[in-house]
């Protein structure tokens, strides 16, 4: 069969070759990030929305290890609580796009014929439309809130997943074990659900992990533009936006830290995802 390689945008593929220590490091980073987001309410040293204008733009201190932003809020607390929205958003995008993408791709690949044409052409239409533009459009129609940008990006990411799934299903259904299952009297639906999908799942999941990083960037970008996340909700993208004025005044910490968090998270998820994808590719050989 032709090997199907998950789609990768350029960028992080080269770092991965540094070897397994990097993977372990990134896996640890991902675990810590998720733990931090889950435990944020108990970890925060201060109320992330408590305003202390008297101390605005103060540097790191014992009470505020990462300093205070221009509105007088504790940066560390906002980073920790912000991890929740910043990770939850991409999670929603990935969950929704993976579920629907797999259904669409599997239907197109398995049934073929006119259904394949209809589904493939319509998902390609989405390809033609830049994801961010789509998101901005939907947000401007539905207003603020995390739901609208997540849905919009999920739709934008769906074709990546469905196209990958379709090609994997096409390759997998040619394998004799699929014919064997059909000859055994299993229905096409059963074969697809119980044999084909579990066999392609690792590749799709690896791709979804990589997508997670990109969704995080896109959502942070939307927040930075002031779209999506409501103004007071702590969010990394929003923090970069809010920190702009502080940078101009010579206090970059409150903008640089969320930037670093975004970069670190994206790199970590990418490295982990690519490592999984490679492991799957190797095992198949």
């Amino acid at each position, binding site marked *: 069969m032709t090997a199907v390689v998950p789609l990768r945008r350029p960028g992080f593929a080269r770092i991965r070759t540094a070897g397994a220590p990097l993977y372990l490091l990134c896996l640890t980073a991902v675990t810590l990030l998720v733990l931090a987001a889950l435990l944020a309410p108990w970890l925060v040293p201060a109320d992330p929305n408590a305003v202390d204008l008297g101390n605005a733009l103060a540097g790191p201190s014992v009470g505020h290890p990462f300093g205070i932003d221009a509105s007088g809020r504790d940066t560390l607390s906002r980073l920790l609580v912000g991890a929740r929205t910043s990770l939850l958003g991409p999670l929603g995008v990935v969950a929704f796009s993976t579920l629907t993408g797999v259904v669409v791709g599997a239907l197109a690949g398995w049934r073929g014929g006119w259904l394949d044409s209809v589904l493939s052409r319509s998902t390609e239409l989405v390809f033609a439309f830049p994801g961010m533009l789509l998101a901005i459009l939907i947000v401007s129609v539905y207003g603020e809130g995390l739901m609208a940008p997540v849905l919009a990006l999920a739709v934008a990411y769906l074709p990546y997943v469905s196209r990958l799934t379709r090609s994997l299903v096409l390759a997998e259904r040619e394998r004799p*074990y699929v*014919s*064997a299952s059909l*000859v*055994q*009297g299993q*229905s096409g639906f059963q074969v697809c659900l119980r044999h084909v999908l*579990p066999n392609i799942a690792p590749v799709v999941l690896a791709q979804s992990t990589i997508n997670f990083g990109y969704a995080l960037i896109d959502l942070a970008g939307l927040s930075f533009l002031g779209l999506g996340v409501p103004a007071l909700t702590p969010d990394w993208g929003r923090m970069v936006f809010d920190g702009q004025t502080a940078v101009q005044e010579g206090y970059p910490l409150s903008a640089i830290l969320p930037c670093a968090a975004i970069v670190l998270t994206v790199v970590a998820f990418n490295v982990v995802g690519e490592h999984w994808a490679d492991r799957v590719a190797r095992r198949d050989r």
Partner: protein
Amino acid sequence: MPEPALVVTGLSRSYGTVRAVDDVTFTLPSGGSLGIVGASGSGKTTTARIVVGLEHADAGEVVVRGRRRGDRARGRAARLARAREVQMVFQDPYLSLDPRVSVDALLRETLRLHFPRVDRSRRTAELLDQVGLGTRAAGALPRQLSGGQRQRVAIARALAVEPAVLVLDEAVAALDVSVQAQILNLLADIRAQTGISYLFITHDLGVVRCVTDDVVVMRQGRIVESGGTTQVLDSPQHPYTRLLLDSVPRPGWDPRAIATARRTP
């Protein structure tokens, strides 16, 4: 005379302008073993796939135990009944088993589908024993088994359905000689025990001699000769059968004569 296990009449199938299968007719007696031989492109595999139901025919019919096999099964009951008519063992034991499913789970899945009330543990052990696999192989994944062991698993899976006809599509071609002999003996034993009928698709005339009662020789989609295996192999009537026989390498063999014979139609 008992009802034949399989009757194929006037089977035809074209791909574009190529007639892959052209008016193929043969009968497989109950408990019998019929070989289909031919070079690559002779249409033997397409014939097998039509009989199993993986391809559909343009014309002709396939009758198993007196029941005509339709093109498509409608509904679960029809699908299962269809599966119990014909089962298949594929050529490549490395690809015909789901890599994620253990031997035990594979057999149980089939048994649950066809015989929901049977004691699956007992029947699985019986099947493994029948194909000469110990219970130790039961927990194994396909990649932990050798080619011969995998082919035994594939045979057990087909037998689990208790079909009337078992189609073996080059089922021993990918195996080593010593393992191939084990599997051929196993197939002979199973036929003697269960009275199952075999449709044996192969290019290997030695294998045909070893395991079939009757043989049909196919060339470019058509049957050029048919009859009892011994009779066809010992006194071939059609020049193409003779060419096939002469092509089998043996000491004192003259490949040049075959090369010349092929060019003169």
